[in-house]
Structures are given as C-alpha cells and as structure tokens.
C-alpha cells in the first residue's frame, strides 16, 4: 500500500491504540494534520499553547496509565513544549511527543522555525529520535512507544522532518514486535536480594514502608496494600505516591518530607528498617542528608538501578518492577515470624496525637486548609484532583486523603507552575465520567489560563478551585521565614476578575469571600456536571504551610503550627532550593 509519511504515522498511532492527541498545528506538521483529519478513531484536542498540550497529555497519562501523546510543530512549537516534557521526565510519565522539523535538506541552515529539537530535549527525555526518511517512521514509532512505556517510563520525542511526512512509499504495516539490543527493560527479580531484605525485615522493631511514585506508575497498589497489611507495618507515602495505599487506613501515617506529617517524619527518623518502594530519596523527602534516618537499615526497591545509591547509601537493593519485587517479598515473608512492633505503634500513635495538621480557624477569614477539607467533603473524596505548584499543592496533598492511585495529579519533581489546569483537562479526557478538580492558586493559574478556551471547545468540564491569597504564597512563606519578611516580588497587586475571566471564556465563575459561602459554592459547582466552573476563593493571605522541615534540618526537627510560628534556617539550608 502506497502512503505518504504522514499517513503512515497516523496508521502507526492507530495501531498503537492511540485515542487522544493533544496538539497544535504549524507549518512543519501540516501533512500530519491533514492525515489526522482523515482519521476517525483519534480525537485531537487543539490546545492554546504547546506547553498546555504536553501537560494535558501528561495528566491524561497519569490518570489513565496509558501513554500520553502530544503533537507540536517545529521551532517555537517544540521549545514551548520543553517545560511540559521536562515535567513528565522528572516524574517518569510515559509519553510520546511528536514534533515537526524543517525539511531535511535545509536542516542546519537556520531555516524558518528551525531548532535542534533533539539537542534541546536531550537532557529531559528518556530518548529521542530524528526521522528524516518515511521508511524509518514505523519502526521509530514502535520503538518510541516501547521505550516510553517500559522500564522506568518517560517521555520520548520523535522529531520528523516535513519531507519525511510528504514522501510516498510502500507501507508494509506497523511492526508487531520490536527488539533492541541496547534496551532490555525486563528484569528478573534477584531472589537472593529478596532473601536479604527479608532477613532485615524479620528483625525490625521499628519498621516503616516508604512508598513513592513508582508504586503508582507501576500499578502496584494491590501488592503494596498486601505487604502493608501482612506485615502490620506503618506506611508513609511521598507526594508522588499518594493514593497507592489508602490514606484513610489506620496503617497510613500520611505523607513524609518537607511538609509531611509529624508522625511520618519522626517515624522515618527513629526507624530501624525502611522499606523504600519506588521512591528516589528526593531532597524534599530526605531533608538534611547528614541527619537522614540515622538508625535505619534501608531496603530499596526500584526499577531503575541508577536510583539506588544515588542520594543515600542503602543496605539491600532489589531491582525490578515494583509489582514483581513486592510479590517476591510477600512470598519471602510467608511463614516468617516478625518482631512484635506494638511499642513502635504506641510511639507512632503518640506522635499522631500531636495532630500536626491541626490549624486554627479564624473568624471572617477563609483558611485554605478548610477549602480543601470542604472539597473533600463535597466530592466524597472521590474526585480526581489535579494540582498546580505552591502552597495550595501542599494543602491539597495534606487535607485531601487519597484512597486510590491515579487520583492525585501533580508536578512533584519539576514543580511546574501552570501544570494544573491542562493536566486536569487531560485527566477529564481520560476519565470523562469522573469529577475532576483543579486545585490552583492565583499565581499558578495565570500561567495557563488560555487553556480555558480549549476546555470549552472540547468540552472538558473541570472545577477550578483557586486559592486566591494575592501572593505567590510559597515564595512569600520562605521570604517570611528566611529573608526577614522582605517580600520581594511575591505580591500580585493587580489581578484579573477571575469570575469575568471564566465567563469570557464561556464558563461559570463564582467568587467566594465568606466562609459560609464556601460549601454551598462548591456544592453548586459540582452539580454543574457539564460545565467548567471557576471558583475564586479569597483565602487567608498570611497562612503558611505547616508542619515544615526547614531547609537544612532533619526529619526530627519539624516545625509545627501553633508551636513554631517562625522558622529559621542555616547556611546549608539557604543553599538549598
């Protein structure tokens, strides 16, 4: 069958089972858009900015577990996409990004809308390809999906020259299998390593399971729950891992790290056995490395060998798919008698009694924490919550306990402001039957408001919860704590009327200024199943995120709301981001 490159590409995507593409056309991809136009089985969402396309594909992938797909043109189309690609890379999200490139004969001539896409994206993709011949398209697409979705997932870029999309060649169909001598993601779990892990676990008197994004991405919820239940161990989850184990279960001690709970961080600090599951010891988790988990033997389960020993030395590592390793570990622990940990639980419950997430309600002010609690109540804890980046992100993570994986969608690693809205849109495309909330702030939302237009055109009704405190809150908080309240450029004096903004894009806008209006407004918003509702909520401008491990401190040096109103840091802390 004779087809042009663009038609071949679209056939490859169909064969890969792609149902949704988020993208934006331009000169270098016109042939691809022409071929897409003739394809009935793939829906294309036309975003308003390429960064939005990639975040939407990312939100789609995080929600569905499928590979996200974004399509952009050459030059600025690609450079706009880079932030989105880096966001997905840092959080190991499976995604294929297709970018157009100038015709191969003019590559290198500084042609119109030419950039070195492969060069620019090299350090923020799992892999990338430049395709200059239509003959190479099918195999490259096959490789791209294979690489993006296997092993430790990540974004893969395919940069395709325009002439490769135009050339007509004999198409022999999409390859069914692919073999790469240089890439073999399947790993057999080393049972000897599992035995070593079991030996440590057996003796543990103060164990804790520390689970990360790998448990979500690796679809390991069931195994993780079985291990936790079978052992009776406490479990703490990272920002990226929330939902893999039900947060409302009594064995869950909440999130850990900089804004984690007191009980989880204290338990990490005092633990004698840490079972790290698909987690990478990020600096937001560990705090000061010199003070990190001084008494613990560490077992590290991960698909990526380079994650092991990168930040923290470990005692036993088990490489493999989280599910496979947990299965082996559960088997290995069968019939073993574990140490009695009643006194450990007694200690943890004492820490719990500190109630580190308690906050003081004030008359006449809407507390941001109360907004998230009300959101939880109104949605029955069942919504998909996509978040932007900043204080609101931490409050959402703290006050909306997730009981299921793939319901909490946030940019954990790169911390990309502007992620929330397009990610919520992508989540809604993936799960149209679900309530989707975008928890955002007045800073973050203004980085991506243009996608409100996309959301109307492609009917992706989302509820936008804007915690509007007039500040870049997290920046303001750090300036209050660490820069003697010198609030340099963290106050946004001029703001749009968000209600009118939403209305001008064809959505519903609601402004909430009084506490008593909060719940009725949220109830009303979620009743509007078919509409996007922007709820602009005026919140306490001075509220800080607590508890907190200040930069440079250890897990046991947490600051608590009510007890420590001010934080300070040291020189090494100031050096941290």
């Amino acid at each position, binding site marked *: 069958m004779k087809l042009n490159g663009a038609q071949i590409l679209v056939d490859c995507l169909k064969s890969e089972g792609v149902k949704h593409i988020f993208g934006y056309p331009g000169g270098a991809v016109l042939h691809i858009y022409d071929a897409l136009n003739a394809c009935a089985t793939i829906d294309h969402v036309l975003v308003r900015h390429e960064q939005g396309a990639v975040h939407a594909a990312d939100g789609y992938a995080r929600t569905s577990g499928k590979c996200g797909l974004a399509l952009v043109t050459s030059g600025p189309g690609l450079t706009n996409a880079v932030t989105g690609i880096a966001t997905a890379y840092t959080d190991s999200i499976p995604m294929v990004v297709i970018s157009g490139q100038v015709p191969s004969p003019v590559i290198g001539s500084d042609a119109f809308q030419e950039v070195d896409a*492969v*060069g620019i994206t*090299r*350090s923020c993709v*799992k*892999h990338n390809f*430049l395709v200059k011949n239509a003959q190479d398209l099918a195999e490259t697409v096959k490789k791209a999906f294979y*690489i993006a979705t296997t092993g430790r997932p990540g974004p893969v870029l395919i940069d395709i020259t325009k002439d490769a999309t135009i050339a007509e060649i004999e198409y022999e169909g999409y390859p069914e299998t692919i073999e*790469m*001598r*240089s*890439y073999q993601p399947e790993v057999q779990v080393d049972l000897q390593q599992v035995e070593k892990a079991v030996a440590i676990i057996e003796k543990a008197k103060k164990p804790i399971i520390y689970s990360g994004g790998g448990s979500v991405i690796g679809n390991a919820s069931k195994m993780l729950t079985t291990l936790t239940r079978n052992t009776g161990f406490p479990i703490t989850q990272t920002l990226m891992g929330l939902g893999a184990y039900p947060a409302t279960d009594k064995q869950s001690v909440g999130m850990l790290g900089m804004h984690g709970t007191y009980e989880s961080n204290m338990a990490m600090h005092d633990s004698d056995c840490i079972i790290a599951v698909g987690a990478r010891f990020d600096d937001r988790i560990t705090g000061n490395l010199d003070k990190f988990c001084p008494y613990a033997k560490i077992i590290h389960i991960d698909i*990526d*060998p*380079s994650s*092991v*020993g*990168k930040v923290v*030395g470990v005692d036993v590592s088990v490489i493999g798919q989280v599910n496979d390793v947990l299965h082996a570990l559960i088997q290995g622990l069968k019939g073993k008698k574990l140490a009695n940990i009643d006194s450990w639980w007694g200690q943890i419950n004492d820490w719990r009694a500190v109630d580190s997430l308690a906050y003081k309600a004030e008359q006449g002010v809407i507390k941001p924490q109360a907004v998230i609690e009300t959101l939880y109540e109104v949605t029955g804890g069942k919504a998909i919550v996509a978040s932007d980046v900043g204080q609101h992100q931490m409050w959402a993570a703290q006050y909306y306990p997730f009981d299921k994986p793939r319901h909490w969608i946030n940019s954990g690693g790169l911390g990309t402001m502007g992620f929330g809205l397009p990610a919520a849109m992508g989540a809604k495309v993936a799960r149209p039957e679900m309530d989707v909330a975008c928890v955002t702030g007045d800073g973050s939302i203004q980085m991506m408001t243009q996608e409100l237009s996309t959301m109307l055109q492609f009917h992706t009704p989302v509820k936008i919860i804007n915690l509007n405190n007039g500040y870049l809150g997290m920046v303001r908080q750090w300036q209050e704590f660490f820069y003697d309240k010198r609030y340099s450029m963290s106050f946004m004096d001029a703001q749009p009327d968000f209600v009118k903004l939403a209305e001008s894009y064809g959505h519903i806008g609601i402004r909430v200024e009084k506490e008593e209006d909060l719940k009725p407004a949220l109830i009303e918003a979620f009743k509007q199943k078919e509409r996007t509702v922007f709820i602009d909520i005026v919140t306490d401008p001075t509220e800080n995120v607590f508890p907190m491990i200040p930069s440079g401190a250890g897990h046991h040096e947490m600051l608590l709301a009510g007890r420590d109103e001010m934080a300070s840091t040291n020189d090494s802390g100031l050096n941290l981001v």
Partner: protein
Amino acid sequence: MRHIISVQLENESGALSRVAGLFSARGFNIESLTVATTNDPTMSRMTIVSVGDDNIIEQIIKQLDKLIDVVKVTDLTATEHIERELLLVKIAIDTESQSKVEVQLDKFDAKIIDASEDFYTIELAGKSQKINDFIDAFSADKILEVSRTGVTGVCQKRQS
C-alpha cells in the same frame, strides 16, 4: 581514583552527544574520551577516562547503562586490561640537540614519522604515564605541538 570505562553503543548520530551531555549535566568529570566504530559497523566503542570516588564511578556506569543507545558498559579498571594512547608530537631540533632527541626516541621506542630541517614529528603509543614521561623528557621550549588521542583499552580476557 582514575577509571577507564569502555562503552559499546549503537553507531547512530547523536550517540556521542548523549554521552557527553550526560557527563556535563550530572557534573561528572571526563579526562579523555575516544570513540570509533568497531568491526561491527553498527556499533561504536567509546573509551572514557574519568576520575571519581566509588560512588561517582558507580553512578557514571549506571547512568551510561541507562542511555537507550548504550549496549554495554565495562569498567576496564576493575579487571585485567590493556590501555594505550597515541601521541603525535613535534619536537624542535638543531645540530646540537638532535642526538639527544634520538637517544630519547630509542629509550621510549618512539618513531619519527616526519622529519623537517628543524623539527621532527614523532609518534608514540603506550600507557598514558609513558606518554607523560616522554613529553617530560624534553624541555618545554622544544615541544612545538602535542596531540594525544586519549586512552583506548580492552580487557585482557578473550571476551569482555
């Protein structure tokens, strides 16, 4: 410690910059890097000399292994191995120094590959230390130009 890391990778455009980019992005140090195709034209071999403690070298090897184009990574320093480097150097001569230069050439088993009236172009292969010693054997003002390939190496076993 100094490590010689041998990397077999797909002979594809961009593969070299993936490796070089990895080193700069992660702040690893490169002392030298050589690359050329092997008997299998689809495969290149790259030899990298880097200095770092055990943790850093472990990370370098793991990160190299993670690159999609990389087929195999071997730390040659961890096994019995052979390393060689090639030097091309131009050394100034005059009637007075010529015989002294030739003594050194004999001592190091170096070869004159081009002779002009006032300088020799000399070729020497050997371990990096031998090449350092050879260069050090001449006073700096006699050395007109130095070009070194960087280290390449193989492990001593029949197959690595």
